[in-house]
C-alpha cells in the first residue's frame, strides 16, 4: 500500500485509505463494542506497513483525524515555505477576462453519454455537486439547444411584437437597453430535469440527475412594458407566443398571467455581464417558475393571440404522459423540489465525523418556506437552515450539521414552498402519474452513504 501515499505529497486520510475493504468492514462491525481499542489495534497494524500519517492518528478518539500531525513534527506545507510565499506573483490584467484556478478544472458542464444522438439538439449538465450558494457561474450554466447555438451580432438583432396589438413594433437592442430595467434572481430548470430517474436509478451523480438547473441574476425589461408600447389587447389577447431567431426558431406559448403580473421579462444581462451565447445572447425570455424551454433564446418575436399555439414543444415534446394514455398539455410550472448536493452520488466521504449537508431548494410557485433533511431514508427528519437570500422562484441554499458515525445512511431533503405544497415522495408521484411521464419529476432524491464512504444514487421503497 506504499504507493498510495506518495501520490501528491499529501497525507492519505484515515482510516479507509490505508485499510483494506475487509479491514474497514471489521472496523465498523466491531465498532459498537470496544471501538477505540480495535481501531487503535488496526491503526497500529497498518502503521508497520505505512510509516507516515499513522502515528498521530493513533492518538485517541473514535473519530479518525482528517488532518494529522506528520511524524516529522509538522506539515511540510507549513514548514517549507512555498514559492508563492517567497517569490514575486503575476501582474494585473495578465488575463483581460479572468478564469477559474487551474485546480478547478474538474468543474465542467458535461453531457450524459447516450442521452442524445447529436450535439446540436442536446443537453449539458451543470456540476451542482461542486457549486456554492445560489448563483450558477455563467460558464457552468446548463445548456439545452434545439438546433445548435450561435453568437449573434447584437447590433443586427431585432425584436418584434405583433398580433393583437394596435401597432406591431420593432426594437433594436439599443432601444431595449434604453428602457427601464429590472434585475432579478431566478432559477431555470429544464422540464426534463431528473427525467432519467422517473422509472428507476439511471445515472450516478447529482450533475446528471439534477444538473439541468441553474440560477442567475438576469437583467432586462418587463415584457408588459413592451406590450404596452405596442398597444397590446390584453383583454382578447389571452396567449402570447415567443419565438427564437435561430435555426429551430423555437416557439412556446407563454402564460399571460405571468406577463401581466410583470414577472416575465426580456433579458440581456446575466450575472452582471451580457448573456452568454449558449444562453441566448443577446436576448432571451425569462419566465420565472416555468420550465426552461419557455425561456426562448435569441428571442426575435412576441405575438399576442387569443388561442394557444400547440408548438412542437407543446404538442410533441414537453407533455406529460399519464397512465391513462392522455398527455397533460401546457404543463409549465416547475413544482417545489430540492436536492442534497453534498454528500451526493459519486462522492466519497473519507472519514467519519462532522459534515455539512448542503443542497438546493426551489419552487416555481414562489419562495421556499422550509427544508427538512433525513439521514435515515425518510423515517426521521430535521429542519435545515435556509441561507439568505430566500427569493421567489430562485434557488435557495440550505445547510444542516451532521456527524457521520460511519454506518450506512440514506440522505434525503424535502422542501415546502410558500403555498404550503410539500415536495412529494417517489411513490406519491408515481401513484398519480405513473413512470412514463418523462417531464416534471420533482420527487425526493435519496443518496446512500455506504460504510466505505462512497455515496450512491438510490431509490427507496
Amino acid at each position, binding site marked *: *500500500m506504499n504507493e*498510495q501515499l506518495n*501520490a501528491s505529497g*499529501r497525507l*492519505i486520510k484515515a482510516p479507509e485509505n490505508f485499510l483494506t*475493504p475487509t479491514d474497514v468492514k471489521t472496523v465498523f462491525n466491531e465498532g459498537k463494542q470496544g471501538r477505540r481499542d480495535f481501531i487503535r489495534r488496526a491503526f497500529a497494524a497498518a502503521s508497520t506497513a505505512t510509516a507516515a500519517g499513522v502515528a498521530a492518528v493513533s492518538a485517541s478518539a473514535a473519530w479518525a483525524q482528517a488532518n494529522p500531525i506528520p511524524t516529522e513534527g509538522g506539515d511540510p506545507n507549513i514548514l517549507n515555505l512555498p514559492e508563492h510565499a517567497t517569490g514575486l506573483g503575476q501582474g494585473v490584467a495578465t488575463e483581460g477576462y479572468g478564469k477559474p484556478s487551474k485546480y*478547478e*478544472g*474538474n*468543474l465542467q458542464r458535461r453531457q*450524459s453519454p447516450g442521452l442524445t*444522438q447529436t*450535439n*446540436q439538439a442536446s443537453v449539458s449538465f451543470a456540476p451542482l*455537486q461542486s457549486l456554492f450558494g445560489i448563483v450558477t457561474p455563467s460558464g457552468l450554466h446548463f445548456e439545452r439547444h434545439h438546433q445548435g447555438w450561435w453568437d449573434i451580432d447584437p447590433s443586427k438583432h431585432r425584436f418584434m411584437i*405583433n398580433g393583437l396589438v*394596435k*401597432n*406591431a*413594433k420593432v426594437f433594436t437592442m439599443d*432601444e431595449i437597453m434604453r428602457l427601464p430595467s429590472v434585475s432579478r434572481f431566478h432559477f431555470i430548470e429544464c422540464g426534463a430535469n431528473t427525467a432519467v430517474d422517473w422509472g428507476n436509478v439511471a445515472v*450516478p451523480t447529482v450533475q*446528471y440527475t439534477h444538473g439541468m438547473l441553474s440560477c442567475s441574476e438576469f437583467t432586462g425589461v418587463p415584457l408588459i*412594458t413592451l406590450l404596452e*408600447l405596442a*398597444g397590446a389587447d390584453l383583454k382578447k389577447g389571452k396567449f402570447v407566443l415567443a*419565438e427564437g431567431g435561430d*435555426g429551430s*426558431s423555437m416557439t412556446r406559448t407563454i*402564460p399571460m*398571467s*405571468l406577463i401581466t403580473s410583470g414577472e416575465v421579462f426580456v433579458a440581456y444581462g446575466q450575472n452582471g455581464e451580457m448573456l452568454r451565447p449558449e444562453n441566448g445572447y443577446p436576448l432571451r425570455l425569462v419566465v420565472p417558475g416555468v420550465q426552461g424551454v419557455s425561456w426562448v433564446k435569441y428571442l426575435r418575436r412576441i*405575438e399576442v393571440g387569443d388561442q394557444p399555439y400547440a*408548438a412542437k414543444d407543446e404538442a*410533441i415534446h414537453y407533455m406529460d404522459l399519464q*397512465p391513462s394514455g392522455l*398527455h397533460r398539455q*401546457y*404543463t*409549465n*410550472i416547475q413544482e417545489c423540489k430540492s436536492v442534497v448536493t*453534498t454528500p451526493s452520488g*459519486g*462522492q*466519497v466521504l*473519507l472519514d467519519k465525523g462532522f459534515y455539512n449537508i448542503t443542497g438546493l431548494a426551489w419552487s416555481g410557485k414562489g419562495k421556499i418556506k422550509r427544508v427538512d433533511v433525513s439521514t435515515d*431514508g*425518510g*423515517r*426521521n427528519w430535521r*429542519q435545515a437552515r435556509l441561507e439568505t437570500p430566500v427569493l421567489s422562484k430562485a434557488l435557495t441554499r440550505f445547510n444542516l450539521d451532521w456527524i457521520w458515525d460511519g454506518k450506512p445512511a440514506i440522505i434525503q431533503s424535502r422542501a415546502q414552498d410558500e403555498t404550503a405544497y410539500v415536495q*412529494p415522495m417517489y411513490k406519491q408521484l408515481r401513484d398519480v402519474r*405513473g413512470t412514463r411521464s418523462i417531464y416534471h419529476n420533482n420527487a425526493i432524491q*435519496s443518496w*446512500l452513504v455506504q460504510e*466505505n464512504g462512497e455515496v450512491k*444514487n*438510490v*431509490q*427507496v421503497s
Partner: protein
Amino acid sequence: MFKFPKIAIAIFLCISSASAFSQSTKYPGVGRDATAKEIAAWDIDVRPDFKGLPPGSGSVAKGQDVWEAKCAQCHGIFGESNEVFSPLIGGTTAEDIKTGRVANLTRADYPGRTTIMKVSTVSTLWDYINRAMPWTNPKTLTTEEVYAVTGFMLSMAGIVPDNYVLSDKNIAEVQKRMPNRNGMTTAHAMWPGKEFGKSPKPDTQNTICMKDCVPEPKVASFLPEFARNAHGNLSEQNRAVGQQKGADTTKPEGSSSQSNATIAPSANTPASTKSVDNKSDNKAVFALLSKNLCTACHSMDKKIVGPGFTEIAKKHPGKLDYLASKIKAGGSGVWGSIPMPAQNINDSDAKIIANWLANGAPK
C-alpha cells in the same frame, strides 16, 4: 410568404376597435412600427385553427421525393429511424384514427413513442417542418414542399391515401383523422392562470412529518455495477479539495487503490486539465467538425447516419486529396445507401479535416 389574413385582421382592428387597445406613450423615441413586409418575413407560425397557414398544396408523391432527398438521412426512409432523432412514424392504427386516441400510449410495455403517436394537431407538423427543417438548412423548403412532406408523413401513418394532395383547403379534414387528436388534457395544476379553466389542486399531497414517518426504508433501485464508469471517472468530476472527493470509478468499488486515485488529482495536475492538454492538438479540427455540422451525421467511432471518423480514417489512410474531394462533393455507396449531400464547406476547412482523417483521425 405573404400572409393576407393576419395583416387584414391587424388593419381591421386598428380601424375598428381602437378602444380595446391601450397604447403606452411613456417612452417616446423607443421602438418603431413594423412594416407589413417585415411582419410577413417573420410571422410564420401556424396555429391549430390554421391561422397563419399560407395557401398552397403538395402531393404525397412529391413529398416522397423531398423526403428521400432531404429528410431520410436522419429520419429513415419510412420515418422509423431512431439513429439521429426519435422515430416519427409508427405505433398508430386505423382504429386510433377512428377514436382519436392512440391505444399504444396506454401500454407500459410499448417500446418508444413516435411523433405521430403523440401529436394531436396537424398544424404542429406543418409549422415545425416549415420553420426548422431540414436540420442543417432550416427554412429552405418551399410552401409546396412543406405541404408535400407533411402529406407524405401522414400517408406513411395511414392517415391519408398515397395519392393525396394536402392543401390549405383540406387540412381541416385531415385534422379530424389525427390518431391522437383526443389525447390531450389541460386539467392539471401546472399552467399559471385561468386560460384553460380553473386550475385544479396539485396532484400530490405530501405532508411535513418529522418522526417515524415511513417504515424502515429498503433500497429498491440503484445503478448496476457495470454502469459504474459509464459517465466517466467521477473522481475527475468533483472538486479536488473539500469535505468529500469523487469516487474513482475506473476501479471496482472498494478496491484498495481507490483512495489513491481519488486524492491524486489535487495538487499540481488537475486530471481534466491534463487530458485537455493531450487533446489540444486536435482541438482545432474538432471545432471545424462542429462548425461545419459534420458531427450532425458523424461521430468519432460509431456509425450514426454516416460512418465514424475513425472508420473513415482506417479505410482511407493517407488519401488526403480523395478525402478532401469527398468531404465537398458527398456521395453514396461507399458506406451504404444513405447519401451524403454535397457540403457547403470552404476548401481550407475541408483540407484540414481531410488531413486529420488521412492521419488516422487522432483524438
